[in-house]
């Protein structure tokens, strides 16, 4: 999709326009070449030019803003280096600076955090969020990780099997997923046609909890307990619950337990 917006490939039908200026229109036979569109595309593996220095890479899109961008993204000290000698996070910043040097009308980010190791990813995610806020540039970001969507996006479109399932704010996605695909994407449990987030599920051991109006109970055996610091993810049958670490310490694999949640915390899913 990003390649289509950038002009690197032409879809069979549809229309792509920025601010009313048509870049692609299948019906009207308009198809602007990539260099005529005001895009800044950051590839998943950055596609930095290996035979040019960092400074030359950044200046390729536009020499005027190169210095300022390198300073802003903290890569000025690397100006004379070749891309092959940089770390993943550094390469990403060079790729960003290069795309921005063109003063684009829209920024296209293809899985910007995928090529980073887990530790760097969280750090860079935060930095990227701040940068995007500062730039105030329309940005299209593609990711498989819903945490990226939640932290970085104003609006999120969930595409499954080529179909757009829902276009909403991250909050709406979490609390009112349109269907089970979207629910699964945000990490929600799908139970009896309802989506409920792990933190809204409680785990009860010992005796089956008494039935109460508006409270759903699912029985099962504990399959795994994953420690994630102050809280832990407990897998009970097909349901994942988030419990405090203190409680998690008491749980054992194979132990019989019940997962409960209030209907008020769950969202009824429409037909998918």
């Amino acid at each position, binding site marked *: 999709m990003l390649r289509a917006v*950038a*002009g*690197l490939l032409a879809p069979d039908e549809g229309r792509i326009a920025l601010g009313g200026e048509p870049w692609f229109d299948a019906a009207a036979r308009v198809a602007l*070449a*990539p*260099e005529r*569109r005001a*895009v*800044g*595309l950051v*590839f998943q*593996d*950055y*596609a*930095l*030019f*290996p*035979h040019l220095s960092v400074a030359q890479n950044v200046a*390729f*899109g*536009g020499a005027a803003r190169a210095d300022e961008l390198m300073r802003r993204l903290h890569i000025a000290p690397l100006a004379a280096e070749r*891309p*092959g000698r*940089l770390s*993943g996070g550094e*390469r990403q910043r060079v790729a960003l600076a*290069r*795309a921005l*040097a*063109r003063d684009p009308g829209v920024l296209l980010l293809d899985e910007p955090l995928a*090529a980073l190791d887990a530790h760097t990813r969280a750090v860079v995610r935060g930095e990227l969020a701040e940068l995007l806020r500062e730039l105030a540039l329309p940005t299209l970001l593609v990711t498989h990780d819903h945490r990226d969507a939640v932290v970085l996006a104003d609006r999120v479109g969930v595409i499954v099997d080529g179909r757009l399932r829902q276009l909403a704010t991250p909050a709406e996605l979490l609390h009112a997923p349109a269907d089970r695909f979207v629910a699964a994407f945000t990490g929600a449990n799908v139970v009896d046609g309802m989506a409920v987030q792990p933190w809204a599920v409680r785990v009860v051991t010992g005796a089956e909890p008494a039935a109460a109006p508006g409270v759903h109970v699912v029985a099962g055996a504990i399959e795994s307990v994953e420690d994630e610091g102050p809280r832990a993810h407990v897998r009970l049958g097909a349901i994942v619950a988030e419990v405090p670490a203190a409680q998690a310490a008491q749980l054992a694999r194979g132990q019989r337990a019940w997962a409960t949640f209030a209907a008020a915390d769950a969202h009824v899913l429409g037909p998918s």
Partner: protein
Amino acid sequence: MRRSGFDVLVGVAAAVALTFLALPLIALFTQVPLTDVPGLLGDPVVRDALEVTLRTNLVADAGILALGTPTAFLLARRRFRGRSLLVTLVELPLVLPPAVAGIALLAAFGRGGLLGDALADRGIVLPFTEWAVVLAVAFVAAPFYVRQAIASFEAVDPQLPAAARTLGASPARTFLRIDLPLAAGGLAAGAVLAFARGVGEFGATIIFAGSVRGETQTLTLGIYDQLESNFDAALAIGILLVVLSGAVLLSVKILGSWRSSSSTSPSPFARTRSASA
């Protein structure tokens, strides 16, 4: 450790083969006193042959680079119907017997040939002129360059020129600043191979251009010419060409290892293709 019979057999076969390959080369350098060689190379026949060879090959190589590079770029980058046919056409002179190349060139440009009469009417006669040598050399040497050039352009990660386009570079600027520099090592290796092949051409040249001293007699044709009258001079030319071939082999190896040092971040594409023609 006991040597098995198989090991001995393999060793003997290798020894015979290597001796067979080395013997003629050794003989070349030992049949004439090496101190005589510079004098022999100073012979006017040899000097004329050297000049013809250098002039014709440089012109032919310039043509090969100028026309072969865009050809290779097109064949590397675009997939279209008939592409494999064109690639085969480009590679054909590689396996074509040189004498066949010569007679084919005559059929095209000679009297009564496909274009020969049309050209003759305009006062252009190609066979048995220095331009004929240029054409013969270009015809047999071009595939060496173009094949290598196609491989070199294909080895460039396609994401890189795509990135250049999204950064505002026109197709021309993308080619000059991205594709060409990244393929340069391989292109140079191909050019060197084409040069070596061109210098060594004999069959096509002698049929299409003849062996006119000072005009169409190249170094290899000179060897043939001097065989009866001045064997030592023929040997001296042979030594010169062996040294040239050795230099070619060396530079191809060096240029080949240059390319492997340019690689983009985690791209799987920018890896070495061996510089084999």
